[in-house]
């Protein structure tokens, strides 16, 4: 009998810790609030375009800005990979500041919403970071995992072939939970594929002309400060529009180059949505040191200030190709870069397609955003 009591006490202690920890994990289900913007037309759910998402943790908000004036349609995706914070913050900042004058803009800030509800084991990832606004209030944002939460989609199959023809086998099999590997999706596929299908269907149903998918990468990555552009015979304008955007950014003093979508990048947004929809597809990456294996202590300084001396040292010693800034690459600059890219893309698109122009205001120039800081760019929540 005494043995049993000992076991019961051990189990109870374990249960106590489990309950305390689970409160923390469950709190990640609560999503960030977005400040009201009087220019916002409506908020739809992605399940309008992919009925299989209804009632799941992956059904996500689509913010619609309709100028009421004729023009083109742009789709902005943030949070495809929830650990790439600049994507989500840029999308939220856009929603809070945008004023569309011609055409329509659709924005999805949490593209893989399920991914925002967990972090990646062993990465020691902080689940949240905070930004102090100019009025002194504090806004908190989640940092998730690039894959869908296994609670929502598990186990990973050892072999899977998506609609794009990408074979998820071997080292890629966990990617069955990665939104950016399963495009153009499948109406009744696995949960992550239904998200992809929703976006594919949105592009087709709303006649989206131009799409930007916002990402970040660890410093080892070769495609930083680069925009991937789809290329296909019936959309030859795409690279010309992207080059115009890149040159504008370069003239503003920002590094930016363009690359064609990779031949075998099946299932990625710029490749598979580019091949299968009429939209011009682009994807941009900024540097995020918190995602790399060399990162030091995980804290707000790393995530918000993008300050990682380890990477600066590794770059100086010749291991990291990317020109790692000594004093970090703050989230404000990364967000500014994404927003500048969006503005110039829309502008270049409009110059090439004057009848389908997409014209908006409210985002400001790169220097404006960096000078104002995220504290002014993001609006207080009442």
């Amino acid at each position, binding site marked *: 009998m005494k043995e049993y009591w000992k076991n019961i006490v051990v189990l109870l202690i374990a249960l106590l810790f489990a309950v305390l920890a689970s409160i923390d994990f469950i709190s990640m289900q609560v999503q960030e609030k977005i400040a009201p913007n009087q220019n916002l037309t409506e908020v739809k759910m992605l399940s309008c375009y992919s009925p299989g998402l209804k009632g799941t943790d992956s059904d996500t908000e689509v913010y619609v800005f309709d100028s009421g004036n004729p023009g083109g349609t742009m789709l902005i995706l943030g949070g495809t990979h929830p650990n790439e914070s600049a994507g989500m913050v840029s999308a939220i900042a856009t929603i809070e500041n945008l004023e569309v004058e011609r055409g329509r803009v659709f924005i999805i800030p949490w593209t893989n919403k399920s991914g925002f509800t967990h972090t990646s084991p062993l990465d020691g990832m902080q689940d949240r970071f905070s930004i102090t606004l100019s009025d002194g209030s504090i806004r908190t944002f989640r940092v998730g995992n690039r894959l869908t939460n296994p609670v929502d989609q598990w186990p990973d199959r050892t072999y899977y072939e998506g609609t794009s023809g990408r074979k998820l086998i071997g080292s890629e099999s966990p990617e069955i939970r990665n939104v950016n590997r399963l495009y153009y999706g499948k109406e009744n596929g696995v949960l992550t594929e239904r998200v992809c299908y929703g976006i594919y269907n949105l592009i087709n149903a709303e006649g989206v002309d131009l799409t930007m998918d916002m990402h970040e990468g660890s410093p080892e*990555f070769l495609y930083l400060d680069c925009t991937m552009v789809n290329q296909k015979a019936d959309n030859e304008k795409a690279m010309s529009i992207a080059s*115009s955007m890149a040159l504008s950014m370069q003239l503003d003093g920002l590094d930016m180059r363009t690359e064609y979508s990779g031949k075998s990048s099946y299932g990625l947004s710029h490749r598979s949505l580019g091949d299968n929809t009429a939209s011009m597809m682009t994807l941009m990456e900024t540097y995020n040191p918190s995602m790399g294996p060399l990162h030091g202590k995980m804290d707000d300084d790393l995530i918000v200030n993008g300050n990682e001396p380890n990477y600066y040292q590794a770059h100086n010693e010749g291991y990291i*190709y990317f020109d790692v800034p000594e004093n970090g690459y703050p989230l404000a600059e990364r967000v500014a870069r994404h927003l500048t890219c969006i503005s110039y893309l829309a502008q270049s698109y409009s110059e090439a397609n004057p009848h389908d122009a997409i014209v908006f205001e409210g985002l400001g120039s790169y220097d404006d955003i960096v000078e104002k800081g995220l504290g002014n760019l993001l609006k207080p929540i009442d």
Partner: protein
Amino acid sequence: MKKIIVVLLAIALLIGFGSCSKAATPAAAAPAANTPSTGTVDSEYDPNATVDFEMKTSADKRVVTIGEIDKSLYQSPIFVTSFGQSTDAAMLDTVMKRVGIDYHYNPTATADDIAGSKTVIIAVGASTKGLGAAGISEADETARAKAIMKQIKADGSQVICCHIGGSSRRGALSDELADMVMKQCSYIVLKEDANFDSKFTDFASAHNIPISLIFATKDTVSVFTDIFK
């Protein structure tokens, strides 16, 4: 026994980690890891191509021109095309738009398209992805380039060789196309990091061709504004 081993292990670890000081010799430029967890794959962008060398241009001195450029040579009609189908051609197209002059742009132009042009600007730089996207084989691209160079010779047009993709455009095919263009050109515009082996500057001085070294792709705008305006 165990205690001795513990102490020895602890000392070994301490020495091991302690000696990991910051004062170590910098290693030779090594490639960055290919992190499978991020974004896209199959890059042809090879950072290994970067070789440290003394550059003439810098962030403060963005354009360095060696030799005298005779601006009067470059008359309209102007034609812009690509040899190698890299993204540099689209960039050059954008640059020309900014310069604000009349020109024709066709990255896959044939010799016939080019006939009659007085100035031909060629964006040199091979991209397997670009060739694939345009559905052109390497052999076809080389053949097209040869035909165009032949046409240019017959027309007596002026050629500007524009290599603005940097060190990542220094593969075998890129170099073959660049050699072809340089033999007939009267002016070279070069993003300087591609000149790590001084291939371009050596050719230019040997054949007395003016060459403008630029620090970044965007500096092409100021170079061409200078030439055409």
